[in-house]
């Protein structure tokens, strides 16, 4: 008699063939790399739109103007700016003619209330280009300039150059990671989160459909008189698992090639490198979360009364892992708070919670990650066992609700 491995191999082959021959898989797998390649051209263009036209050239007090009604700033005007205007109309004309970006009206009662009107053309998304800060510096220089020598004035404007030192958990002191690594430690988990979101959505949808199709096809009578339900479930799981992971691997490789190119010309974007520990935690979280989700897909597909009901339920499963994302504000402010830690240990949200905590620089430990992911895997295996036990009964109940009572009965009397 043929062994279980051979049975699983047959179902695995059939499921893989069905998924790959649908065309949607290949299109979807290649769509992300294509979008990423497009991003190599698009991202710099978008970044450019959000940046000032000539950000590097604007230094000092250029393109600033003022009207002084207080009489306190006789020497505020400099050779390179700010420029003095006689009245508001003259300032407005200068702004309209693009001679300056902003001009400021210093009122007669300035010493009492310090209220200054800023006139500016509010264009673009953000509108401002830091003009207030630069004009403040000009005012400061004018107010204290007469009382300080030039060296002291320079110190006042640039009082220190800082060196950062990172206090480790064990009390040792280290140079912090270079900017490139820090960016990577933020961006790469975010990329993984995005990939996991898509993979879970697609994987769960495919699994639920695959299982519920068994009901619609009425194929189950032939299948279960030939092979065991566990072989059917395992074959489907391994097939969709392998397909999903291959798809994710293609996306990760494409992202690692294209994303650095997208940010190549952008200052401080870095090389998107991550530490080995972070990389391993991300990979482990991805695989564990994906595994649990598609096992849940088998269960939901089996207990749903029809393919239509199953397709309604599938998006709900895919939403559960994203509870940590809904709590993003809390996650950023308290990445090691009680709520976020609880989500880390709740198997259905553990994977994304770990990824998000890694992204926002939480102090999550390796032990915490291992414990959490162990819980995910154990629950996944338990769900797999339950799904295989109830599979025959649940699939035969096409068009009928599968209640808790049925679940218990099916578990007790499974093959």
């Amino acid at each position, binding site marked *: 008699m043929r062994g279980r491995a051979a049975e699983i191999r*047959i179902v695995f082959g059939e499921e893989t063939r069905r998924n790959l021959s649908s065309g949607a898989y290949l299109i979807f797998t290649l769509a992300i790399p294509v979008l990423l390649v497009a991003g190599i051209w698009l991202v710099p263009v978008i970044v450019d739109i959000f940046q000032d036209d000539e950000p590097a050239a604007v230094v000092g007090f250029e393109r600033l103007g003022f009207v002084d009604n207080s009489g306190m700033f006789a020497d505020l005007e400099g050779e390179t700016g700010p420029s003095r205007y006689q009245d508001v109309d003259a300032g407005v004309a200068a702004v309209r003619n693009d001679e300056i970006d902003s001009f400021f009206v210093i009122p007669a009662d300035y010493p009492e209330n310090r209220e200054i009107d800023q006139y500016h053309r509010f264009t673009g998304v953000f509108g401002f280009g830091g003009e207030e800060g630069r004009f403040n510096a000009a005012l400061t220089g004018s107010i204290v300039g007469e009382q300080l020598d030039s060296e002291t004035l320079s110190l006042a404007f640039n009082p220190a150059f800082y060196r950062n030192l990172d206090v480790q958990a064990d009390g040792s002191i280290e140079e912090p990671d270079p900017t490139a690594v820090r960016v990577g430690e933020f961006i790469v988990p975010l990329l993984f989160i995005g990939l996991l979101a898509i993979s879970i959505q697609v994987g769960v949808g495919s699994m639920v459909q695959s299982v519920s*199709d068994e009901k619609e*096809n009425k194929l189950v009578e*032939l299948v279960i008189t*030939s092979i065991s339900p566990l072989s059917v479930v395992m074959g489907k799981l391994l097939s969709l698992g392998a397909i999903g992971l291959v798809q994710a691997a293609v996306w990760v490789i494409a992202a690692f090639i294209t994303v650095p190119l997208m940010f190549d010309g952008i200052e401080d974007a870095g090389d998107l490198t991550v530490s080995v520990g972070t990389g391993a935690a991300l990979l482990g979280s991805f695989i564990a979360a994906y595994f649990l989700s598609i096992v849940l897909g088998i269960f939901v597909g089996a207990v749903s009364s029809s393919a239509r009901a199953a397709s309604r339920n599938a998006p709900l499963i895919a939403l559960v892992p994203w509870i940590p994302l809904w709590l993003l504000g809390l996650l950023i402010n308290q990445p090691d708070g009680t709520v976020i830690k609880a989500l880390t240990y709740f198997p259905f949200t553990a994977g994304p919670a770990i990824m998000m905590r890694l992204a926002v620089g939480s102090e999550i430990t390796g032990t915490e990650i291992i414990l959490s992911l162990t819980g995910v895997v154990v629950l996944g295996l338990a769900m797999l066992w339950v799904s295989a036990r109830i599979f025959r*009964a649940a699939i035969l109940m096409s068009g*009928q609700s599968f209640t808790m009572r*049925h679940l218990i009965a*099916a578990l007790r009397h499974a093959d």
Partner: protein
Amino acid sequence: MAQEQILQVDNLTKIYGVGSRSVVDTLSNLVPGGTARGRRVVDDVSFHVNRGEIFGFLGPNGSGKTTTIRMSLGIIRPDGGSVSILGGEPVRARLQQVGYLPQETGLPRKGKMLDAIRYLARLKGLSFGEAERRAGELLERTGLYEHRYDKVDALSGGMRQMVQFIVATIHDPDFLILDEPFAGLDPLSTQLMKQMLNERVEAGATIMFSTHIMSDVEEMCERVALIDRGRLLLFGGLDEIKSSYGATSLQVDAAGIPDELGGLAAGNGSDGTIEFPLDGEYSAERVLKAYADSGIAVDRFEKLLPSLNEIFIEEVTRARKSG
């Protein structure tokens, strides 16, 4: 010497809950024991199928044929009684030697016909290559080869039925169980399927098929079982069953009809064959005596046994009247 029994069904019982499609119904369907207060859809049914025969399993719609077949294959579990198939319980190792054509179409609808056949053949133990080769042969034989890359969804009902037949026979099973195999088939396809079934029997296979079309049974089967409302009404050899009912009419080849029998003759064929229905008043002996008394010569006479269709209607009607 007793014949080897391929399928032995003893006191098989299945109880569904009150009202179809109820929760209890479903639960009872899935687990042994079911519910104590339910409808007996199969009630203490016993019969057996001998090796090498074509066995007809008859009954009106909803009589419990499919439920009995499903229990025989271990798809659903009985609430009482036992099943022995190929010498033991219906476990998967034994069922690998069984070919099954379910009443409802059981094919992956979105897939191509050839892929579906190959997959189901592989589940029955054929290698990829064997499955491909056998599928090709059977598709050629059934005239479906040119449709092998068509989606199952795109096939007609008759074509799908033929594909299911291919799936049931592709692994050369020892025992074929076919639930309404001729449903939806045109006469040519029906003829072809019957021919292929006879070839399978000649090759040593055993066949049991359910139907409510009596002519198919009379044409193919030597033994039958008839159930209605879950209860076994008849079981045995077809000739034996018919004989037990006695003759329903007398066919006579003669030059004329005696005056005494003038109003009785049911038919007067152009070839001189006359048929007299028999009942309590007119026996075969009385008809022949009337001929002898009239002096009309009789060339041939034959007692006609009832058709299976007549027996079916009579038995089911009687059973329903008696409640």
